[in-house]
C-alpha cells in the first residue's frame, strides 16, 4: 500500500503578472521504506512541494493521502497533529534552538505531543546514540559542527516515530565532510526501512535514493530508478584502464 499519495497538487503565489506557479499539477506516490529524491534548479518549487506534503502549507488544489488518511483538507489542529505524529521534517538551516542542548532539542517534539518528559528524554538519548552523537548529547548547538547539528536535527525529526521523514536541502549548508556524515545517516535510515523524501540539488544525496525525480518550473519532468546495474566498472572510473 502506498504510504504517501499526492494527486494534482497546485500552489501559486502572487497575482496577475507576478503569478508564480510554485507547484503545478504534481502527482507523487511513495512506497513504504522507499527513499525518493527530488532534484531541480533553485526556484523550481521543490521546497514548496515538500511544505505541502509536510503540512506546513495548504495546497490550492489537489489531494494528499498519508498512511491512509486524507490530509489536504485537515484543519489547523489536524495539521499540527500530523506534523507532530506522522511527519518528521529536516530543514536546510537546521533550525535548532540555540539555547537548548542537543538532547533538549531532540526531545522537543515529543514534549509538544504531551509525552512524559522522562520518556521523551530517554527516547531522545536513544536517537542521539543511533546517530552517533551520544557523547554530544549535552552540548549546545554552538559547540557542534554543521554536520553534527544536522544529525541532531534528523534525530529530532525521528523522535515521534514518523511514518515519513521529509528533508529540505539537508546538506545545503554543509561542507563535503559534513555532507558525508549526513549521507551516511540517511543511508542507515534507509537500511532500517524509514521512508524518506529528500529535496536536494546535491547529486550525492540524490544517489542514495531508490528513485530520483527531476522537477522544473513546478512540475515533474523526469523520473529515474537508481537501483539496477550500471554499465561501468569502478576500475574504469578510477582511470585504471590501459
Amino acid at each position, binding site marked *: 500500500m502506498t504510504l504517501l499519495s499526492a494527486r494534482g497538487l497546485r500552489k501559486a503565489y502572487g497575482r496577475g503578472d507576478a503569478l508564480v506557479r510554485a507547484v503545478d499539477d504534481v502527482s507523487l506516490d511513495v512506497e513504504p521504506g522507499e527513499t525518493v529524491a527530488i532534484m531541480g534548479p533553485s526556484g523550481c518549487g521543490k*521546497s*514548496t512541494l515538500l*511544505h505541502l506534503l509536510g503540512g*506546513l*502549507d495548504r495546497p490550492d488544489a489537489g489531494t494528499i493521502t498519508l498512511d491512509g488518511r486524507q490530509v489536504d483538507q485537515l484543519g*489547523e*489542529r489536524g495539521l*499540527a*497533529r500530523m*506534523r*507532530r*505524529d506522522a511527519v518528521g*521534517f529536516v*530543514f*536546510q*538551516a537546521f*533550525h535548532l*534552538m*540555540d*539555547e*537548548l542542548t542537543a538532547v*533538549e532539542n531532540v*526531545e*522537543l*517534539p515529543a*514534549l*509538544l*505531543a*504531551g509525552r512524559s*518528559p522522562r520518556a*521523551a*528524554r530517554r527516547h531522545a538519548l536513544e536517537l542521539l546514540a543511533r546517530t552517533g552523537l551520544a557523547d554530544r548529547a549535552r552540548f*549546545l*548547538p*554552538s559547540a557542534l559542527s554543521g554536520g553534527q547539528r544536522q544529525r541532531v536535527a534528523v534525530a*529530532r525529526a525521528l523522535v*515521534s516515530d514518523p511514518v515519513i521523514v521529509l528533508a529540505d536541502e539537508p546538506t545545503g*549548508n554543509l561542507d563535503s565532510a559534513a555532507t558525508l556524515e549526513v549521507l551516511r545517516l540517511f543511508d542507515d535510515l534507509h537500511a532500517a526501512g524509514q521512508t524518506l523524501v529528500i529535496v536536494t540539488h546535491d547529486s550525492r544525496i540524490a544517489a542514495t535514493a531508490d528513485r530520483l525525480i527531476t522537477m522544473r518550473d513546478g512540475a515533474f519532468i523526469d523520473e529515474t530508478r537508481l537501483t539496477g546495474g550500471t554499465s561501468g566498472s569502478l576500475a574504469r572510473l578510477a582511470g585504471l584502464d590501459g
Partner: protein
Amino acid sequence: MGRPWLIARLVLRDLRHRPGQAVLMLLAITAATATLTLGLALNGVTASPYLRTQAATNGADVTASVFPSGTSGARPADLAALTPLASAAGVTAASGPFPVAFATLRADGHAVPVQAQGRDQSAAAVDQPLVTQGTWVRPGQVVLERTFARAVGVAVGGTVTLDGRPFRVAGLAVTAAVPEYPGVCYYMTCNSPAGQAEESGMGLAWLTAAGARSLATPAAPLSYVLNLRLRDPAAATAFAAAHGPVAVTGPGSPSGPALLTWQQVQDADNDLVSVAQRVLAPGSWIAIALAVASVAVLAGGRMTEQRRRVGRLKAAGGGPSLVVVILLAEHLLIALVAATAGLGAGWLVAPALSSGGTGLLGAPGLPALSPGTVGLVMAVALGVTLAATLVPAVRAARTSTVRALADAARPPRRRALLLTVSAWLPVPLLLGVRLIARRQRRAVLGAASTAVTVMGVVAVMAAHRDADVATARFNWFAGLPDPVFGRVSQVMAVLTVVLVALAAVNVIIAGWATAVDARQPSALARALGGSRGQVSAGLSVAQVLPAVPGAVLGMPLGVLLFAAANGTGQVLVPPASWLTALLLGTLTAVAVLTFIPSLMTARTAVAPLLQAETFG
C-alpha cells in the same frame, strides 16, 4: 547635499516605512510625558500653600475677635477690649476692627450659615483678601471665599441672599487669616447666634462695612475682628497667650478677645491639605516613575528590531557613526514630538486638578505649568530616550553587517532550571516559560512595570481608605458635598485612570515586541507539531506569568509607599476584596491586551519564516 539633509531624508523614509511602530512609540511617550507633567504639577503644588497665600494677602500673624455674649445679644461685643491690641507691644501693623455679622446665606437651593465681614473698598494694611475672580466689595455686592463659593455652587455675577436680602456676587477671594472652608470655625472662633451645631460648615464672605452692619439685628448684634502683624511672627503664640484666651467656648464664655495665631490657621489648613497630599504625593511620584520606566522600556525594546535596518544601512555603505546618528535622530524626533504633545495634554488637565481652594491646592495666581516643569519634562523624555537608545544603537552599529542582516539579535541566554521545569508543564506553559527564559530582561521589565502600576493603584486605594477615615472627622457639613473629599476623589480618579492607561500602553507595546521577537521560535514550535492555539497561549503566558510576581510585589510596596508619603507614617491596608479584584483584574487585563499580538504571531505562515537562513 549635506549630511544633515541625508540623515533627515533617511529618518523620514524610515518612519514612513514602518509608521505603525513609530505611532505606538509616539503614543507611549505622549502618555508617559502627560503623566509626568501631571505628576510634577501636582507634586510642586501641595508644598506650603499656606505661606504663599499669607504672603499674597499680607496675612495677619494674629487675629483678635470679640463677640456678643449672653442669650439674644444681651451683652454686645466689647469693642473696647479689642482696640488697645492694635498698639500692643510687638505689633507693627493692624487693620480693623471690622464688623462681623453672622447670617444665613441662601443660594441655589442651599441654606448655609455664613460669617460676613465688613470691609473697606480700599486695601487693608493687614489681611487684604486676594481676589481671584471678579472684583472686591462694592455696595450691595458680596465677595465669597473661593472654596466656599465652589461648594455652594455660586459663580461671579450670581445672586445670593443673606438673611433674605439679595446681594450680587462681585468676586471670589482667598485669605490666610481664617482657616479655609469648611474649617472656618475650626478653632471655634465663631459665634453664630444659632449655636455650635450651625458652626459646622460655616462659610466666609466679605461685604462693605455698611452691608455688614445692615445684617446685624438686635437679637444678633455685631462681632468685631482685628488683624495684627507682629514684628516677630514666630512669637505669635506667646502674644496670643499674653493677651487673651485662645479659644472661645461658646455663648456665655468670659469676655475678652479670642485670639487666633497664624500657626493655628496653617495647621488647620494643612490638616485639610494633608488629606490631599496623602494621595497626590505618592501618586505623583508613582506617575513619574512609571512614566520614566515606560519610556526606557519602549526605547530600549524598539532597538532590538532595528538590527535589520542597521544591516541595510551598513550594507548600503553607511559607517557606524552614520548609523548611530540616524537611529538616535529617529528616536529623538519621535520623543520630541511626543513630549510636546504630552506636555500639552498635561497642561490641559493639570489646572482642573490644581486650582482648588487657596490653601488646599496651589496658591492663587500661579500658572499650572511653570517653565521649570516644561524644561524638566522635555529633559526627562529626551534624556531617557537618549540613554535608552544610545547603548543599543552603538552596539547595533558595531555588529558586523552580515549578522545584522541575518537579524541575529542578542543570542538568547540559557536557563537550565527553567528549561528542566518547563518540560513537566502542559504545552502552553512549556512554551511560555521557555519564551520567558529566552528573554529574561524583558520579562523582568514587564514584572517591574506591573509592580509599579499596582503599587500606584494600591497607594491610591489606601488613600481612599484614608480619605474615608479622614473625612469621618469632618462630617459636620450642612448638607453640602465635602469639597475636600470631592476634590481628592476627583484627583484620585484621574490619577488612577492615567496610571492604568499608561500601564495598558506599556503592556501593549511589550506584548507586541515579545511577539515579534518570538516569531522564529513560534514558527519552529508549530513546524514541530504545536497547534496555533497552543503557541498563542504560550505567548500570552510569557506575558502574563511575569505580571504575577509583579502584581503581588506591588501590593505591599503600594501600602509602604502610601505610609511613607502620607506624612503620618500610618500604614493603611486596603480591604482584601479590593486587592484580590486588583490582582485578578491586572492579570486579566494583561492577558486581554496581549491576546491580539500573540494570536497574530501564532497565525503567521510558518513556511516563509523557516526558509530564512539563520547563521549559527
